[in-house]
C-alpha cells in the first residue's frame, strides 16, 4: 500500500498543471486573434478546468485534512503549487501560447495514455476521460505549429522564437524525483523516460513538418513540481484568487 501523502502530491501536481494552464488560457477570453480561436482557447481552458477539478477533488480526499477543491485552488500560495513551470509562463503572442500548448499537450496526452494503466482506479478513470479531450487539443495545437511554422516569413519567425524561448521549461516535465519513483514502484505513476521518448518523437516530427528547427539542448529550468516557481505564478494567483482572498467564503 502506498503512502497517501505521496499519492496526494502526485495527484496535486497533475491538478495544478491543469488549473494554472486553464487560468492562463482564460486570459485570452475576448482577446483571441480571431473569433474561432477565442472560442477554441477558452474551450481548452474549460476542459482543463474540468480535469483540474477531478484531480484536485481527489487530492483533497487523499489529504483528508478537511480541505476541498476550492480551498486547494484559491487558498494556497505560490510555494504550495506543484504545477510545471511551463504552464505558468505568460501568454505572449499567439505563437507563444501555441508553443506552450503544443509542448504541454504532447506531454499531457502521453501521461494520460500511460495513466490509463495505473493501478489506482480513480487515476485510471480520470485519465481515460481526460485523454479523449486532450487528444483533440493536441490535434489542434499540432496543426497550428505546422501552419505557423510553414507559413509566412513573419509567422515562421515568431513560431521558431516561441519554440526556442519555452524550450528551457520542457526539461522538468521528464525529471523523476522521489515521489515519481515511489508512485512508479507502486504502478500508480508513470515512467517519465518513456513519456520523454514519446514526446520527443512527436515534437521532432511536427517541427520538421513545420520547417522549424528543434532547439539545441540548453540549461533546463526546474522546480515547479517542488513548489519553486517563476515570478509569473504570483501575479497569476493574485488575479485568480482575488475574490476568495478579499471575501473569504464568498459564494456565487
Amino acid at each position, binding site marked *: 500500500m502506498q503512502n497517501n501523502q505521496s499519492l496526494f502530491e502526485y495527484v496535486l501536481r497533475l491538478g495544478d498543471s491543469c488549473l494554472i494552464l486553464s487560468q492562463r488560457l482564460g486570459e485570452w477570453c475576448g482577446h483571441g486573434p480571431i473569433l*474561432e*480561436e477565442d*472560442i*477554441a482557447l477558452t*474551450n481548452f*481552458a*474549460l*476542459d*482543463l*478546468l*474540468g*480535469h483540474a*477539478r*477531478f484531480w484536485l477533488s481527489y487530492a483533497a480526499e487523499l489529504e483528508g485534512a478537511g480541505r476541498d477543491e476550492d480551498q486547494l485552488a484559491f487558498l494556497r500560495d505560490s510555494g504550495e503549487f506543484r504545477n510545471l513551470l511551463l504552464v505558468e509562463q505568460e501568454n505572449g503572442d499567439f505563437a507563444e501560447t501555441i508553443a506552450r500548448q503544443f509542448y504541454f499537450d*504532447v506531454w499531457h*496526452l*502521453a501521461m494520460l*495514455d500511460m495513466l*490509463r*494503466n495505473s493501478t489506482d482506479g480513480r487515476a*485510471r*478513470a*480520470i485519465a*481515460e*476521460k*481526460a*485523454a*479523449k*479531450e486532450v*487528444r*483533440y487539443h*493536441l*490535434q*489542434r495545437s*499540432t*496543426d497550428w505549429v505546422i501552419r505557423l511554422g510553414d507559413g509566412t516569413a513573419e509567422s515562421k519567425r515568431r513560431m521558431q522564437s516561441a519554440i526556442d524561448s519555452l524550450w528551457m521549461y520542457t526539461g522538468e516535465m521528464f525529471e523523476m524525483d522521489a515521489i515519481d519513483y515511489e508512485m512508479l514502484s507502486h504502478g500508480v505513476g508513470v515512467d517519465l523516460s518513456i513519456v520523454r521518448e*514519446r*514526446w520527443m*518523437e*512527436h515534437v521532432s*516530427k*511536427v517541427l520538421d513538418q513545420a520547417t522549424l528547427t528543434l532547439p539545441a539542448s540548453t540549461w533546463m529550468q526546474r522546480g515547479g513540481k517542488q513548489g519553486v516557481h517563476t515570478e509569473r505564478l504570483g501575479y497569476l494567483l493574485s488575479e485568480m484568487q482575488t475574490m476568495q482572498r478579499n471575501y473569504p467564503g464568498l459564494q456565487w
Partner: protein
Amino acid sequence: MEKDIWEWLKEVPDPEIPVLSIIDLGIVREVHCESQTGTAKIAITPTYSGCPAMVVIGEEIRATMKRHGVDDLVLETVLFPAWTTDWMSEDAKERLRAYGVAPPVRLVKIAGLEAGQPLAGVNSDDRSGFVACPQCGSIRTEVISRYGSTPCKALYKCKSCLEPFDAFKCH
C-alpha cells in the same frame, strides 16, 4: 420504481440542446433504489469534463424527481466508462439533425493515440466530406472551427447551400 425513474428522467432536457433529453445523450449510467430505505440513487457521467451544463442538469434532475415524489435522492457522478457519442440513440441523432445540428459521425479509423502507438499518429481531425449539412444534406462541407458554441460542438459550413451550422463532435 427504478423503471419509473428511468421514464421520468426522459423529461430532463439538455439545457443547451433542448431537443435531447439526458437519456438520449446517454449520460444517466445507473438508477438504483434501496428497498429498505427508499433512497434513490442516480449516477450520471459528464459529457465533457468542464461542461458547465452538468450543474444545471443536476438541479433539473433533483427538481424532476421531487415533482414525482422522490425526495430522498443521492446524485452521483461517475467518470468511468468515459462518455461517448456512441451512446446516443439513432432516434436522438435524427432529432438533432431536424433541430439543425449535424449528429456525430464516427470515422472508420480515427487518427489518434491508442495504447502503444506513437504520438506521431495524431494529426488532423478534419471531417470535411463526412459531416452532412443538416439543412440540405450535402456532404460538401468544411470545418470552420473545431470549437463551437458548446464544448460538444464544432462549427461547419456547407459549400452547397452556404449555410453555416453546428456539428456535434464525435467523442
